[in-house]
């Protein structure tokens, strides 16, 4: 009995991965074949990008502030509080900016995509769209994927910028250190490989967030309860995948550009 359950679960996992792979690949490739729904891309960019600015800005600012607080306390033991700027900028740009923005946007948008598309599935709106001769993958999924990739890239820059500003605020107003020194250390510590690493990640994270959110939405079954289940699965899966992808991308990037 236990073996049968394991067997069924394993098959289910393999089938889900297979379905997701086909779904994600088709959605991505739709950009290169007409019709391309540019107006939907712009609408989704507004919803995903502009709509997420406030949470990304706040989370970035306070993450940078906390980093400055914590690092200054530790660095002071070595008389190295002057390199707080370098510590904050490197941590934000290489890691935290992209990952935090990814997780924040995942919580806000993967859930919204899964619930919106899931509701459309259970009320037969997706079938109605197909019956009217419109491909829901092109119309609903592809614009969301490209909008999330594009906007997450810019949102990460916003998070990095405000993270460094948050660190500066703590350094100047709470730790009473020199602001110029903070910014010059933040600037001098950065290299191309750091910026590249920080800006490549959101491209992958954006793809994960939108494709997972849409996938679970489009696979919704079981009425309103199913919509809730899809929403949870979308947020949990995309958040975990962001962390896993972060590890893999970091590993690859560090082997390409060793520190």
């Amino acid at each position, binding site marked *: 009995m236990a073996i049968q359950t394991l067997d069924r679960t394993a098959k289910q996992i393999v089938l889900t991965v297979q379905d997701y792979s086909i779904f994600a690949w088709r959605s991505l490739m739709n950009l290169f074949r007409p019709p391309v729904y540019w107006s939907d891309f712009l609408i989704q960019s507004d919803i995903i990008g502009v709509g997420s600015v406030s949470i990304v800005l706040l989370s970035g600012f306070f993450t940078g502030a906390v980093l400055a607080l914590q690092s200054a306390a530790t660095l002071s033991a070595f008389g190295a509080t002057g390199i707080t700027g370098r510590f904050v900028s490197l941590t934000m740009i290489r890691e935290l900016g992209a990952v935090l923005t990814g997780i924040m946007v995942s919580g806000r948008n993967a859930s919204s995509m899964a619930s919106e598309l899931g509701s459309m599935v259970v*009320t*037969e*709106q997706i079938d109605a769209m197909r019956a009217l001769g419109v491909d829901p993958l092109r119309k609903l999924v592809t614009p969301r994927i490209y909008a999330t990739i594009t906007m997450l890239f810019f949102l990460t820059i916003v998070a990095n910028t405000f993270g460094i500003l948050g660190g500066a605020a703590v350094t100047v107003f709470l730790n009473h250190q020199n602001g110029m020194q903070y910014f010059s250390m933040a600037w001098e510590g950065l290299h191309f490989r750091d910026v590249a690493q920080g800006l490549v990640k959101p491209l992958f994270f954006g793809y994960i967030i939108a494709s997972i959110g849409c996938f679970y939405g489009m696979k919704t079954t079981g009425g309103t309860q199913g919509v809730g289940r899809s929403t949870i699965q979308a947020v949990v899966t995309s958040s975990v995948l962001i962390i896993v992808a972060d590890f893999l991308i970091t590993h690859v990037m560090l082997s390409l550009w060793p520190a």
Partner: protein
Amino acid sequence: MSLSLLTELEPLKDTLPVVEMRHVTISFDGPPVLEDVSFRVAPHETRILLGPAGVGKSVLLKLINGLVKPDKGEVLLFGDLISGMPEENLFPLRARTGMVFQEGALFDSLSVRDNVGYQLIEEKKLTDEEIDAKVRESLSFVELEETFSLFPSSLSGGMRRRVAIARALINQPELLLYDSPTGGLDPVTSTNIISLIVKQRDVRSTPSLLVTHRLQDAFMMCTHRFDAGKGEMVPLPKGVTDPNTTFMMLDEGQLIFDGSLHQLLHTDNTFVKEFIE
């Protein structure tokens, strides 16, 4: 009206079926929902699919325009074999059919205008003014012109079905699929909906397949016609039925009846008899 002595008018003749199912079987993680189902829908023909809830009537409709694929058997739409056709190739064929879903399936974030004109908006062949005119024409067919700017949430259940019919009709489809269009509606609203379907059948002669479990709707379609002069549905003379409106019945995934109203009323099949009674 006595339905025991029925006369059928001469049916409209045409050869190539609009829809054909050949030995279709489909299941979803369990026993077959439909098993070895075969039938045809001829041009100008209206087929009424009867059966209790949960026997696969809606699945059968979705098989016809390729929304679901059969496990076995063949489905032909406008002469094209669609059962193995890739999704991309199905969209042009689906655009030639109109489908009315069980609960209307209107896009709740779009206005009635955008819902009804959805297909035209997506095709991008007409200007906004031309689309508006077409939408108004389609809405006037279902007598709901005043809802043009409203959103589906502000419409009653019956109005939503009528808007869904307007959406299905706007592109003058070559085939209409109605999935329980009167389900859950009061008798007066149901009669209004059936009147619209009869109007479409008699004015435009569009072949159609209507799924229902309400016998009164099915019999009304067979025993009434649309009077263009009066602008309303009127009964046919006593004992006369529409020759192009025929019946099918599903039970436990199998097609247990396929024939005219006369044959339906005189069948020996116990289940059909019980269902009718």
